């Protein structure tokens, strides 16, 4: 076997000995790559046997963001997410041609982006429609659902959004944590119910976030999106957190560690909510705002219960609660800032996907808390009590979600 020229002959984990052998080993690794390069060169040289390309250019454009930075001005951020360059020849606002400026250039190569500025007397509170005409007359559309001047990037605006983030993130989580003394007085069965309820809450959040993440991903530039972006990122985040948690699987899971991971997952979820709220406000949907804030606040109170549940057998201190509330709640503030000032559908989808992975991992962990006890007592983990808890958790989330819809 040692004489074989193929690396498959080597035992797994074997390392070749000697300088000459190393060079030979590297060459064998590079050989397929060299062949691949030759094949690619051949395809490029012969056009893959397809003949000359006669089809018209594929023109696609992704409108990342439409803002109204000042009265009489509309601004768009665009990305060419197609394979061919695209030139914006003319711009329509409400079915009328308007002069416009475009920087850095009117022609965009693949994945290049630009800012289009249109002097246009938009009308506060009304809707506007924008069309971008390419060289071949393809029209790419964007809209301003409710025209409202974009928030200025000043201290006051940041403070205002921080307040909104506090209302929808920090306050409800902190209030939810206040149920901790109540939960401590629950018996074993009551605790199982609360843990099952937490699973229900988290299941709802996972499904909810997945839908939202997929929707957000659709708005990302074409080359970056695709139906797999969210599931893959979520799966990787899930596996990563599982690996981290699994390292200490021999030791009993600390309640605080579990709670921290729940808080982290919920924090990412609240970041996503913050993004949605901030972006909605930036797009002028502030008219819908107060109910939106109340809805999210009520919706998120239940998150506190979920975070506190694994702690009931520990003796947590006040600073632990403060830390958990901050971990779960503060990302909402960050989310509103990002959403209002630098919203990018691609990164929003990534954040949400990571959140999904995190929450899914927490579900696994909380489930383990229930099953461990049940195994010790030689009882089935899923019984009418825990099923009722899961159902109640989902029902509570569903009902409070209606407030946001």
């Amino acid at each position, binding site marked *: 076997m040692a004489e074989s020229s193929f690396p498959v002959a080597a035992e797994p984990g074997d390392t070749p000995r000697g300088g000459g052998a190393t060079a030979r080993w590297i060459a064998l690794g590079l050989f397929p790559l060299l062949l691949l390069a030759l094949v690619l060169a051949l395809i490029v040289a012969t056009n893959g046997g397809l003949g000359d390309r006669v089809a018209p250019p594929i023109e696609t454009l992704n409108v990342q963001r439409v803002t109204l930075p000042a009265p009489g001005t509309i601004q768009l951020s665009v990305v060419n997410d197609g394979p061919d360059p695209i030139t914006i020849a003319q711009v329509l606002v409400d079915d009328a*041609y308007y*002069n416009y400026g*475009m920087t850095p250039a009117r022609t965009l190569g693949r994945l290049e982006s630009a800012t289009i500025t249109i002097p246009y*007397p938009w009308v506060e509170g009304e809707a506007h429609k924008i069309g971008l005409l390419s060289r071949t007359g393809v029209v790419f559309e964007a809209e301003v659902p409710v025209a409202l001047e974009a928030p200025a990037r000043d201290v006051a605006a940041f403070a205002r959004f921080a307040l909104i983030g506090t209302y929808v993130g920090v306050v409800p989580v902190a209030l939810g944590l206040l149920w901790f003394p109540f939960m401590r007085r629950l018996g074993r069965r009551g605790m199982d119910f609360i843990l099952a309820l937490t699973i229900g809450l988290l299941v709802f959040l996972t499904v909810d976030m997945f839908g939202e993440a997929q929707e957000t991903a659709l708005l990302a530039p074409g080359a970056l999106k695709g139906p797999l972006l969210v599931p893959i990122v979520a799966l990787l985040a899930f596996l990563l957190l599982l690996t981290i948690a699994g390292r200490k699987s021999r030791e009993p899971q600390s309640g605080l560690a579990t709670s921290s991971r729940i808080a982290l997952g919920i924090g990412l979820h609240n970041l996503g909510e913050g993004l949605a709220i901030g972006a909605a406000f930036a797009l002028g949907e502030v008219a819908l705002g107060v109910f939106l804030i109340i809805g999210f606040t009520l919706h998120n109170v239940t998150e506190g219960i979920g975070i506190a549940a694994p702690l009931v057998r520990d003796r947590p201190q006040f600073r632990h609660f403060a830390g958990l509330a901050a971990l779960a709640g503060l990302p909402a503030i960050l989310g509103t800032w990002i959403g209002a000032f630098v919203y990018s559908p691609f990164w929003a989808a990534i954040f949400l996907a990571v959140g999904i992975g995190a929450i899914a991992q927490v579900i696994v962990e909380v489930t383990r808390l229930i099953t461990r006890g049940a195994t010790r007592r030689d009882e089935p983990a899923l019984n009418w009590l825990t099923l009722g808890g899961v159902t109640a958790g989902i029902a509570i989330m569903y009902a409070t979600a209606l407030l946001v819809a």
Partner: protein
Amino acid sequence: MVRETHDSPPATDPPMPPTPFLSRSVGRRGLVTRTVTGLATLGALVSGAGAVIAATRPAAAQDPAAGHGQHGAGGQMVPLPPTQDPAKAASVEHDHGVQMTVGDVDTAAMGYDPSVYLTAFDYGTASTLPDGRTLRDYRVIAVDKEIEIAPGVFFPAWTYNGQVPGPTIRCNEGDRLRINFTNNGSHPHTIHFHGIHSAAMDGVTGIGRGNINPGESFTYEFDARPFGCHLYHCHSTPLKRHIHKGLYGAFIINPDPQKHGDRAKGRHPEYSESRQWQEFVMIMNAFDTTFDGENEVYALNTVAFHYMKHPIRIARDQSVRVYLINATEFDPINSLHLHANFFDYYDHGTTLEPTLRTVDTIMQCQGQRGILEFSFKDHEPGMYMFHAHQSEFPELGWMSVFEVV
């Protein structure tokens, strides 16, 4: 055999020097030089005081002798850099939105200038038949051609003689006409004349010779009657597509004063009575660049806003006659509204008495046409706008201006 090329009006000084059909570039240069002041005034008109229209123009379109340039509201000319890449950033430097396309079309590259088209009449090659009548031979070739319908927006047109609209075929009542048609396009085409002729000469798919296939030729032959303002267009199926791709043109038959009396002399360029008239051909057309059955660009003589950027100069001491034809596809009607003035209207131009008197707005259904007669004799010099009165159309390009001097 005498090649006749008439111009209308047979020009007194100073307005509209002859722009002979065969010496297009000279004519265009002259016209452009004359419209420079008009442009500056227009800049002030449409953009408000202190505003500057930043018009970019492809370098190839610039006629070095013509002195094209950016124009400011103050009236001073700002010469464009010698080479300007249309793909480079466009800039907008004004306070309010300018309801207009950005830049100017490259008429030289397109081989078609709407300003020249207005007064370009093709009388064909005339000869005398044994019975003393005039025989006129015309050559019309169908070719596929990409045309620029708004600055930087290119439309894959089907054309007669490489231009949209096709050449204005003009003749005298009673002439024998021979239209030698060759199809060098990629699809079967015909020429269907609105006029009186036999079924065999009707130019319709399936009747007589029917479709003229690519590479084939056919001669349509008939007498010129009745006098009036008519049109010709392709009648191959699918009809909508063949028309909206650009296969149409004006067909004008001058009334015979020997049959219809002195009133006909004003419409007949061979009589001195016609010299008090300045005549223009205007075809209202539109382009569906996305091929969804709705037009993205509306225009008078193909190029959106062309006569806003290059006003039509008319002399106050001469009357104005407009041969107006509606070749718009998809929209059932189009219209013309003249500002600050009223006109007499001759539906189809087949009468010498107006069919409507003292109106300032008329509408035409698809294929309808007529003659407008008016005068600015008692007006002060200035910019007088005219446009479709469906407000959507002017904002999408069918907006023009007369510069009365």
